[in-house]
């Protein structure tokens, strides 16, 4: 296969017109030949910059070297030393702002497709039945992990590898956190990828108890004092949706992105035979510009709607991954940028009939360094709609903090924890992921889970 060193080996994708009508995965990934060809582009730098851009510090040149040699199993071993969920990360990490943004190849030409190579290795390992290895002897100590998202799964996996007896408690009926309820099937297949990664964690000896809401079914203090756990990791995420507080927001047809995505992903409303209903809007506006907004928009599109993204800043400020914005545009999502909702218009039966919006311009940079949007006077207009999906971000659920004495939180309701160890203000309780940082990324949550596993190991080895 011929390779232009300046250009990436293109990755095969479903045609935009076809995929806009189905929930199959958009990106098809590299095959063996394509992966080996892309791997040749890597310079195997002595001081690999990519590795410094990776939040879990994967030894990128080493695994790419194995891919180039065709020794995929070895490549998987390298990645597994750092990441518990490579098939997930290879699909949803913002590589363009992490490893790939630092790649030397990127100075002149396109950076190496590190994410797509990672995905290739992880998919190959799964398809060939390769499991992560368990080594350590049993420590005879019990650790409870709250939440089965990326932080919880990673922390649990690492602790099990170190010989601890680990139980994950998950509030929902299925393990995976945002990976199962939030990120859609067409970006992250649930059965083949997420369920398989969860099985890998179970294969390390981790027990998963679903349908247990910590703070309600049982408290952290009860886990520590009555159920014999020696330490607790809180990886409960940031699942509480925000609303704008504009008139009409409680009308029928207004949903949080979390509700819309949960109905579709976790409850599989899009599939024949599943009982949970979903409202299939014909004209839909998604308010917001992050990954969650793109996912909601592309889901609504697949359910048959004309879909608008309404975002108050400009294209450059869109917080979503570049690849997601690009995919959304290809599929026909309409972007109403520099536009802010003022009011949701409601018909006499309580249903959405439109949304009054105002145009914005960008003014001076604000405290966050981003230019602050200001309303353009007299620019109000109405979008005719039957559905509005609010995707304005989420904050941590207070269920745990409000039922655990001595667990300190900050003004954003995030749990306060030391970055290096995950240690919270309460003895024996550690935390990480979105519950600590507020909504962030899969890989940062994994990194925090890893750090906490080390912190817990040190705490219990004292």
């Amino acid at each position: 296969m011929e390779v232009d060193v300046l250009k990436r080996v293109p990755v095969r994708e479903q045609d935009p017109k076809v995929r806009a009508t189905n929930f199959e995965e958009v990106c098809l990934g590299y095959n063996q030949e394509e992966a080996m060809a892309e791997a040749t582009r890597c310079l195997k730098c002595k001081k690999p910059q990519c590795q410094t851009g990776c939040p879990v510090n994967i030894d990128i040149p080493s695994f790419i070297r194995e891919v180039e040699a065709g020794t995929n199993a070895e490549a998987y071993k390298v990645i597994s030393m750092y990441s518990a969920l490579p098939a997930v990360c290879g699909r949803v990490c913002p590589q363009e702002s992490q490893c790939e943004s630092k790649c030397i190849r990127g100075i002149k030409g396109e950076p190496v497709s590190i994410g797509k190579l990672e995905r290739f290795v992880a998919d190959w390992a799964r398809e060939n039945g390769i499991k992560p290895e368990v080594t350590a002897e049993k420590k005879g100590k019990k650790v409870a992990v709250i939440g089965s998202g990326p932080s919880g799964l990673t922390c649990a996996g690492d602790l099990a590898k170190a010989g601890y007896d680990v139980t994950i408690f998950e509030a929902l009926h299925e393990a995976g956190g945002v990976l199962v309820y939030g990120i859609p099937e067409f970006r992250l297949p649930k059965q083949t990828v997420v369920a398989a990664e969860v099985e890998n964690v179970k294969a390390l000896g981790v027990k998963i108890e679903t349908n247990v809401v910590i703070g309600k079914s049982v408290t952290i203090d009860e886990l520590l004092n009555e159920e014999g756990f020696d330490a607790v990791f809180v990886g409960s995420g940031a699942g509480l949706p925000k609303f704008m507080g504009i008139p009409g927001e409680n009308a029928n047809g207004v949903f949080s992105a979390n509700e819309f995505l949960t109905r579709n992903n976790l409850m599989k409303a899009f599939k024949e035979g599943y009982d949970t209903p979903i409202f299939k809007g014909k004209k839909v506006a998604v308010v917001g510009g992050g990954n969650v907004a793109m996912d909601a928009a592309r889901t609504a599109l697949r359910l048959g709607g004309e879909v608008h993204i309404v975002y108050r800043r400009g294209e450059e400020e869109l917080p979503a991954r570049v690849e997601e914005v690009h995919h959304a545009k290809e599929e026909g999502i309409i972007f109403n940028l520099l536009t802010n909702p003022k009011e949701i218009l409601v018909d006499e039966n309580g249903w959405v009939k439109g949304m009054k919006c105002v145009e914005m311009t960008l003014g001076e940079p604000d405290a966050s360094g981003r230019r602050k949007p200001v309303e353009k006077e007299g620019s109000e207009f109405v979008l005719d709609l039957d559905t509005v999906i609010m995707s304005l971000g989420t904050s941590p659920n207070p269920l745990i903090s409000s039922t655990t004495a001595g667990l300190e939180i900050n003004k954003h309701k995030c749990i306060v924890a030391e970055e290096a160890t995950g240690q919270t203000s309460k003895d024996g309780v550690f935390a990480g992921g979105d519950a600590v940082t507020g909504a962030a990324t899969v890989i940062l949550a994994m990194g925090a889970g890893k750090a906490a596993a080390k912190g817990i190991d040190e705490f219990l080895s004292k």
Partner: protein
Amino acid sequence: MYKIVRKEYLANNIYLMDIEAPRVAKSCYPGQFVIVKMDEKGERVPLTVCDYDREAGTVTIVFQTVGASTKMMAQYEVGEYFQDFTGPLGCKSELIDEPIEELKKKNILFVAGGVGTAPVYPQVKWLKEQGVDVDCIIGARNKDLIILEEEMKKVAANTYVATDDGSYGFKGNVNDKIKDLVNNEGKKYDLVVAIGPLIMMKFVCLLTKELGIKTIVSMNPIMVDGTGMCGACRLSVGNEIKFACVDGPEFDGHLVNFDEAMKRQQMYKTEEGRAILREKEGATHHGGCGHCH
């Protein structure tokens, strides 16, 4: 998996089941609810805790077959299993945390409409166990729709039955009975707890506001997760938006926007669903308040 250990047919397509769920049974209180998911493809159905046995590790649920899911639930028999059973969710009744001495000083009236009698029962029972006597009105359209009357009589100081058509007990809706108690029988109440169809709770609240009696209602809006993650269950209470699954399900009835809640409850009701409702007089309608014809 959660085993069904008892099943009873109460009346009018209302069923009672005891489910083996030790974690829930250990920690639940009156006022809270659970979420049941029958099988792989099922919905997450919220149901109020109607009783519990901490020793046996069982939780009692009561449901009326109104939609596809509750109809399917009624097909399950003793010895079979529900795939998922989560809880307890929501806040316990605020009475539970009040000092018993304070509660004993209060005159409390419970107003139960239709299948709403089921969630009223554990509260009255709990109060009885603490030595607090309360009154209770059970309302329904006719005699056949009255449930848990015998059980209620054992735990409430006075149990009054009101039927719209007068086929049993007092003739009139629950509001007529409240007026009767206050105006004709010289009863004085400091607190009303009303649980039943939305329309009943709305009209009870209008009356108690007039009478100046604080009123607590239990809301049961559309839910998905039941843990505060989706906002499907949001309600306007006073000037605030509340999530019924975490902030409730019980609220100050004088602050709840019932009209909005009623509209929101219609969101997923298809024409077909509405037809069944009309035909069968389901749980979300016709609880016996007499205001809905």
